[in-house]
């Protein structure tokens, strides 16, 4: 993580998706996806439920192999390199899952410490201090010794984010960060995502269909459609709202009203 990363050229490609087709066996989810995620972007993957947003996340995080097409991290073709290289790339990514996906038999501190223990040679005391730092960054100072079952859903989500940040990743993925959160907590989480991007300079990929989030934090994005099984729009969400000619995109971004005005963000 470099201090100069913030002022680096914003349009430096970080992840490129080229002609990607995603399928479960013969069942195609999405085809011909082409888009670029730039360094420092907050990239929004939007679309109605069931359009393949989560499947795309699985492809980007190395859990599923593309049926065809390529995913490039920098210049490296993610699926063309040997497995150990893939693991190295994954080490630089953090994923924050919908319900936190915290390991239930470990305390919050241990959840965050595990990747640090596996990948670094830091002393146990140092790791513990780092874990507490991560927890305080997400507003959970003092909750080190709690088990995931002892805290609320919103807090679990934050703890999941703290764990995703354990190794100071270059890319952070969020699966439905605001699902199940009240508007205020959801706004706070959005602010936190912005803070992380601004101070750590991380590239952030967010999967969501929460309009308020899409317009307030997104700097780039892609719209996946479940009927045509491909992307219908790409770019800054506000630009998409302003310029898209596609009725399905407009319906999604205006909740079917067709009025091209920003929701309260």
């Amino acid at each position, binding site marked *: 993580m*470099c*201090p100069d990363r913030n002022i680096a050229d914003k349009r430096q490609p970080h992840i490129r998706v080229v002609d990607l087709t995603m399928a479960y066996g013969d069942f195609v989810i999405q085809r011909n996806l082409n888009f670029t995620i730039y360094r420092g972007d907050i990239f929004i993957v939007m679309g109605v439920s069931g359009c393949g947003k989560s499947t795309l996340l699985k492809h980007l995080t190395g859990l599923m192999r593309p049926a065809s097409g390529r995913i490039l991290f920098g210049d490296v073709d993610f699926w063309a390199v040997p497995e150990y290289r893939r693991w190295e790339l994954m080490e630089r990514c953090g994923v924050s899952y919908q319900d936190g996906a915290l390991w*239930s038999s470990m305390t919050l501190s241990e959840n965050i410490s595990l990747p640090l223990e596996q*990948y670094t040679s830091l002393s146990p005391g140092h790791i513990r201090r*780092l874990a507490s730092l991560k927890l305080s960054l997400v507003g959970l100072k003092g909750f080190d010794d709690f088990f995931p*079952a002892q805290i609320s859903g919103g807090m679990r989500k934050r703890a999941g984010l703290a764990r995703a940040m354990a190794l*100071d990743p270059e890319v952070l993925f969020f699966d439905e960060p605001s699902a199940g959160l009240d508007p205020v907590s959801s706004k706070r989480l959005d602010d936190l995502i912005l803070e992380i991007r601004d101070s750590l300079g991380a590239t952030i990929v967010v999967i969501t269909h929460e309009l308020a989030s899409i317009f307030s934090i997104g700097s780039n994005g892609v719209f996946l459609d479940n009927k045509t099984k491909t992307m219908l729009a790409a770019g800054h969400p506000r630009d998409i709202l302003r310029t898209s000619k596609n009725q399905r995109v407009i319906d999604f971004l205006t909740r079917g009203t067709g009025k091209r005005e920003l929701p309260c963000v």
Partner: protein
Amino acid sequence: MAENLNDAGTFFIKTDEKGRIQISFSGNWTIKAAVIEENKILKELGHRLVPGAKVMVNASSLQAWDSIFISALIAVKDFLENKNVAPDFTDLPEGVLHMLQLASSSPEAGEVPATGMEKRFLERVGKTFQSYLQSVRDFHRFLGEVVLGLAGLFTGHTRIRAKDFFLYLQNAGAEALPIVSMVSFLVGLILAFVATVQLKLFGAQIYVADLVGIAMARDMGAMMCGIIMAGRTGATYAAQLGTMQVNEEIDAFKTFGINPVNFLVVPRILALGFMMPFLCIYADLLGIAGGAVVGAGFSDITLQQYINETQVAVSLSQFFIGIVKCFIYGLIVALVGCQKGLSSGRSAAAVGRVTTSAVVTSIVWIIITCAVITIICYILDI
């Protein structure tokens, strides 16, 4: 980007002409680079610190940083604040200041409640004992609910879905056959070996048939079925219901006014209770067959003689004792498995705990029950 990201981070502390302490950080302060322990900084800082000193932190030659650097700064800050010195961080990069601010902002979750871990020894003993008593009470309540649920079958209060019931039957019956076959056949074989070696000394190998037949019919067939089903079906029941508890499926039943005991537990108990006697008869026969292989194969006795001897020795009442025992074991396995499952906590670890506990508890109760029934049979001379 910095030239070499693996250069270790360094720090340098000096006191300048105005008496200010300057801490300079340089190089890479990242997880990937070699890391300096925070204690080292604090130790050196401690040496130089004089009351009322001003401390400046600068990072002008810092190359790359991540949370390791933030963590070090926080350690410095906490150390100095303990000594009533406010460090001057103004020369740090903006991103660093941002992170520091974020880390020191008050926790959003509000006050941190106690985790419940820091209790004293006696208090823990007391709480453990109370929770044990509570679990005994819970089991009795559960037993009562099951009896009411079974009675509800006749009054129409309990409705079970035929589809589920047949699935449970298949799971507790047909699908258990391979493992029951193997285990009981081998147990019969082992008994026969032990008996053959001893009885050969008296030239009484023919009684191998008696021993194996009676042992399998009265006890071993039933007990092997009980133990296998505890590990197989009991564990399944506990894990299924425990996972349903985790997913709030049990709560969903309750809010529809469907009693989970009636809907989930009663059919499982019926299925296992119904299948166990059949499994027991099957296990008995295979055990006797296993005995015959050794009894007739490793001595002068013919298979016909062995079968005749078995028929004479093993009366029908001995089979019945085994069947009754096995039926009771089935009830124990199903009851314990379901009760543990329903009392599961809401995490993956909790499901694992109740599953283990279901198997162990069932096996212990099976053996205790076996001992009690054996003693009763002895007293009643059956």
